[in-house]
């Protein structure tokens, strides 16, 4: 399996009237072919902004100030808006959190799928497009696709709408699908359906998926690898089993400890105290230093480098430094 997408040193700044928010700081990760990478982190940790940076859909006041996004050997950050338009949808597609707002309420859903095909597959005839739209609707598990084809978004339930959104995203057989909290707005029973669908589709279409979520259950369900973000930095990446069994970064440990376990009832949850850092004025050292239980002097002053803590498992934490172990012992 080769790397299909590789992000290196990505840094994104967002200008507001109060100052510049350093939303994403020096982030590195990659996505293998046909795998699912889950990006987890708190709201404001920069996970959504990173994806928007990759897609070239940052808000007007946001800018990639440094770094590269290599896709198929080409750097997407160097692409013009026009060139990005040919990539978006056909090569890399995106699914957003809220299915209510990501569909056009005044257009039949079949037409919305066809719009996507029209933009990227110019050689298709109208009949072919319609056939493809119906095929996509049945692919995402919508019964009676011929009838649904003619319906408007408000005639569908939330779960159905998210299926349509996924159908649109998959219309042009993208190589990479970026899903930004695709199940957060849905109920648990519907969430389970959508997760199943995404796993199924991945087997059928061989798409690589990046899924942003804050639900660790969803991560466990769907991810092959995990990237953990905190305070605009990527603090840990690794195989999903590794991350859950042997977390290296204190934030990841805290996160896993803070969810209630089925078998240990009655005990207090292990909460992480405090609040995430203000990225207008990010801390000099490790972003988690202010909330960490093991903070050392060095953590407050210097950002740690990535160290290996398993095969294909990296974490940026000073505790992994040999000197720290010496100090502790």
């Amino acid at each position, binding site marked *: 399996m080769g790397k299909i997408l590789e992000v290196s040193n990505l840094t994104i700044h967002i200008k507001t*009237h109060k100052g510049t928010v350093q939303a994403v700081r020096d982030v590195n990760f990659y996505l293998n072919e046909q795998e699912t990478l889950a990006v987890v982190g708190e709201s404001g940790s920069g996970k959504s902004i990173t994806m928007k940076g990759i897609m070239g859909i940052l808000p007007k006041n946001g800018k990639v100030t440094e770094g590269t996004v290599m896709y198929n050997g080409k750097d997407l950050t160097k692409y013009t808006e026009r060139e990005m338009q040919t990539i978006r949808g056909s090569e890399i597609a995106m699914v957003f959190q809220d299915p209510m707002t990501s569909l056009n309420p005044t257009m039949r859903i079949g037409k919305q799928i066809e719009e996507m095909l029209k933009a990227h597959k110019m050689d298709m005839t109208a009949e072919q497009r319609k056939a493809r739209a119906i095929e996509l609707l049945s692919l995402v598990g919508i019964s009676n696709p011929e009838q649904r084809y003619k319906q408007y978004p408000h005639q569908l339930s939330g779960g159905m709408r998210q299926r349509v959104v996924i159908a649109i995203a998959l219309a042009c057989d993208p190589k990479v699908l970026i899903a930004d909290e695709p199940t957060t707005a849905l109920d648990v029973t519907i969430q389970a359906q959508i997760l199943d669908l995404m796993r199924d589709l991945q087997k059928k279409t061989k798409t690589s998926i990046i899924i942003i979520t804050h639900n660790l259950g969803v991560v466990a369900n769907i991810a092959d690898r995990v990237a953990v973000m905190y305070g605009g930095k990527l603090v840990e990446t690794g195989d999903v089993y590794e991350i859950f069994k042997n977390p290296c970064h204190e934030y990841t440990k805290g996160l896993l400890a803070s969810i209630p376990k089925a078998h240990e009832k009655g005990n207090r949850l292990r909460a992480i105290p405090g609040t995430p850092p203000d990225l*207008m004025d990010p801390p000099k050292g490790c972003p988690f230093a*202010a909330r960490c239980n093991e903070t050392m002097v*060095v953590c407050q002053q210097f950002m740690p480098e990535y160290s290996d803590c398993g095969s294909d498992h990296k974490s940026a934490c000073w505790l992994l430094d040999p000197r720290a172990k010496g100090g502790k012992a």
Partner: protein
Amino acid sequence: MNNEMIKDSMFVKAEVAADEKEHIAAPASGMITDAWARLRKNKAAVVSLFILIAIILLAILAPIFSKYDFAFTDYSNVYSTPTKGHIFGCDQFGRDLWTRVWMGTRISLMIALVAAVLDLVVGVLYGAVSALLGGRVDAIMQRIIEILVGIPSLIIVILFLMAFPAGVGTIIAALSITGWVNMARLVRAEILKLKNQEFVMASHVLGSNNLYIIMKDLIPNTVGIIVIQVMFTIPSAIFTEAFLSFIGIGLAEPQASLGVLINGGYQVLQNYPHVLICPAIVIVLIMVCFSILGDGLRDALDPQMRK
């Protein structure tokens, strides 16, 4: 990274004060300071604000410090073009246009301001009562508004001016008679929206009385849209007044208002254009600046952007 700066001695546990974890780094900021910071970024709005301040100051001060009274006639200077003594020149009776233009601005602004305040008081009360009482009262009050909206306001204003003697008071009354409707609708819509917000529910649950909820929860949160609506009412009132005076049913000579002055200048436009141009520039500046400032304030006060 400066590896040499990292010393082994730094690998010891640091003491983090417990309160440090909840510390908010940003300086405290209220709604006004926030809005002002945003407004300051908007160059056009700031320039408009300064132009308006300058115009208002001139309207107050210029007639006081002028050598001439606005009604003082001097037949040796009829239609004099701008000179050192008469900065804007003179009109058909040799009256100083500088004084008359600022006097006219003063009266126009005053009419607009009083009309806007009346709109504000009537509109906010009407809208708030309608939204808070709800049910049948709300339905009846809304029907009344719909009837008022149905009749073109210009017709009401003209009929009103025909029926009553012309004067500043009559014009203000004519402007206010229909002007409050928009304010009432806006305030009603905003309060209906706020009524279902969780913080208003929280006040109910806490046992706060209705007066408290109106004064502390509802009105402070509608101030933004009220201010913006006023910013758009003022120029439209100035415009209506100028229009009425221009067609000759507003203020009459020797009273000066921007409409009266423009009417006078329009009649001699071909031979003495300065008589029209000076008041026209002032009215255009007022209208444009109020609109730009209103837009800027809307963006600055928009609570959506505060998240």
